[in-house]
């Protein structure tokens, strides 16, 4: 009998756990450890953030789903990993601390045969003074990273609209809250949904909306942008992103590191080293991500965190962490099996694995401040990687240690993304995009790094219908309703 523990119940972890349960016989255990009691379809949080959905629309309780699937569910956060066991035992184990009501703070050791780290990001608000403390959102800005944050954001936004209706001009600032953020796409969706709602509320002319991000150009999205064929031309995403901003009268500042947030004001530094300030009445700034802070210890209790985790807290996998300068980067730097190089029974998937480097061109100001997006791991790659890792672990359990590991390199997979620009069955729009591959391969596709036959983008009502349908489809799939495996990640 083997035990597989998955730390994290988000898109990647939940995918890994549910497929592992399906593929492993009843002789083996599948355990999910997550501090959350609810599963959250994160892509729809932006609609909660503008009041177009409620928290209930984007979450559901995990316990009944895991009970139905016969997955052992522990509502707890993982604290440490002990891959070599302890003094009196060679069994690998993790320590967990319960967050479940009635058991808060209780700790337990869980032994494992295989471990999947799908803990996702620590929302590192504390990295920018004034943005927050540690992983906690501060009081000056809002967030759409969690359903709770998004609900709060919606209430604050309504206050802004009320003031605008009363004749007070309002200033809205949306973007990234640090020079090394990712998730520019989510901020993009939020700013245009705010703009759309402001128009619907009849206050658009009383609201100034501005974007600020760490991208060196609009349309980078943490992927170095993309090129698509439009009207017989191969076109950079920069052109279409800037076009949408101009069309919707949204000003922008790019190449910015937000260095400090105060009540109604931010300070920032630009790539040319100059500094500036922007005032705001309402602001949503994405925090930078870090690993959740797991520690690791050897048999003697010595700290071996650096062996397993990169300095940013994400778990090392089979990536090339010695790629060096940007000019030397290759698609093959990116991991394929997501297996930890030191402990072969340990894997990481979703946002939890340490990328070899960023995707966008690295940039910093003359002061040495890094100002460049970090790589996004959106829903589709996260789900595919989670499934591949689960498949590898199941094969190792069922076929033995020499089983072939399944591969899912982001340099060999595409992503389908839908970025909402406003919700409405008949007047909503969204940019529907495919990118192939996610991580550009300039050796295989010189010039653009991507196959432009499979990379495209288009904005319209159809995109909105697709995003809304995907909302329902993926929640259906996550609830393990009949036919759930037929819905691809």
């Amino acid at each position: 009998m083997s035990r597989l523990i998955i730390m994290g119940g988000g898109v990647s972890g939940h995918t890994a756990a549910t497929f592992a349960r399906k593929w492993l016989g009843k002789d083996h255990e599948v355990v999910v450890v997550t501090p959350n009691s609810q599963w959250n379809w994160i892509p729809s949080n932006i609609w909660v953030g503008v009041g177009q959905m409620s928290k209930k629309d984007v979450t559901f309780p995990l316990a009944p789903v895991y009970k139905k699937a016969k997955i052992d569910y522990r509502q707890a956060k993982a604290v440490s990993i002990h891959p070599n066991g302890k003094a009196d035992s060679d069994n690998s184990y993790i320590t967990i601390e319960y967050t479940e009501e009635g058991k808060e703070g209780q700790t337990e050791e869980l032994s494992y045969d295989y471990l999947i780290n799908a803990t996702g990001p620590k929302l590192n608000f504390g990295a920018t003074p004034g943005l927050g403390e540690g992983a906690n959102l501060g009081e000056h800005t809002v967030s759409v990273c969690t359903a709770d944050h998004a609900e709060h954001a919606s209430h604050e936004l309504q206050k802004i609209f009320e003031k605008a209706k009363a004749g007070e001009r309002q200033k809205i600032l949306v973007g990234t809250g640090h020079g090394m953020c990712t998730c520019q796409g989510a901020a993009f969706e939020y700013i245009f949904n705010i703009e759309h709602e402001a128009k619907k509320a009849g206050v658009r002319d009383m609201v100034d909306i501005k974007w600020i991000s760490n991208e060196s150009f609009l349309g980078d999205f943490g992927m170095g942008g993309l090129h698509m064929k439009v009207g017989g031309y191969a076109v950079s995403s920069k052109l279409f992103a800037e076009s949408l901003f101009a069309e919707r009268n949204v000003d922008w500042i790019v190449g910015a590191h937000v260095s400090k947030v105060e009540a109604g004001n931010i300070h920032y530094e630009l790539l040319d080293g100059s500094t500036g300030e922007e005032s705001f009445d309402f602001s949503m700034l994405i925090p930078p991500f870090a690993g959740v802070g797991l520690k690791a210890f050897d048999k003697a209790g010595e700290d071996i965190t650096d062996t397993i985790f990169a300095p940013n807290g994400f778990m090392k996998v089979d990536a090339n962490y010695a790629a060096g300068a940007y000019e030397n980067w290759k698609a093959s730097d990116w991991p394929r099996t997501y297996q930890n190089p030191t402990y072969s029974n340990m894997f990481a998937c979703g946002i939890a694995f340490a990328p070899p480097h960023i995707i966008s061109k690295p940039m910093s100001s003359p002061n040495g401040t890094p100002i460049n997006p970090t790589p996004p791991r959106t829903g589709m790659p996260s789900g595919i990687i989670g499934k591949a890792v689960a498949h590898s672990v199941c094969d190792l359990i069922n076929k033995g240690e020499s089983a072939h590991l399944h591969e899912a390199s982001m340099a060999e997979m595409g992503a389908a993304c839908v970025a909402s620009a406003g919700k409405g069955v008949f007047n909503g729009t969204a940019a529907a995009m495919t990118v192939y591959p996610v991580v550009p391969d300039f050796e295989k596709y010189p010039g653009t790094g991507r196959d432009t036959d499979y990379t495209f983008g288009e904005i319209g009502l159809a995109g909105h219908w697709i995003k809304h349908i995907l909302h329902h489809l993926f929640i259906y799939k996550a609830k393990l309703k009949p036919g759930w495996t037929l819905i691809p990640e």
Partner: protein
Amino acid sequence: MSIKNEEVNFGKSEQFNLTMIPGKFARSMRTCKIFQLFRFIVINIKMLVVVRKSH
């Protein structure tokens, strides 16, 4: 002289002036239900092809 509202924004900033802004027809096609129904089918096919290549 006809006012083309969609071109007004070119004058609002240097940034806006140097990009492209869709005209009235292009914008109306984004929410034209019949056209978007056709695009819905095409986009889904394109996405399914990419999803299939990725699994």
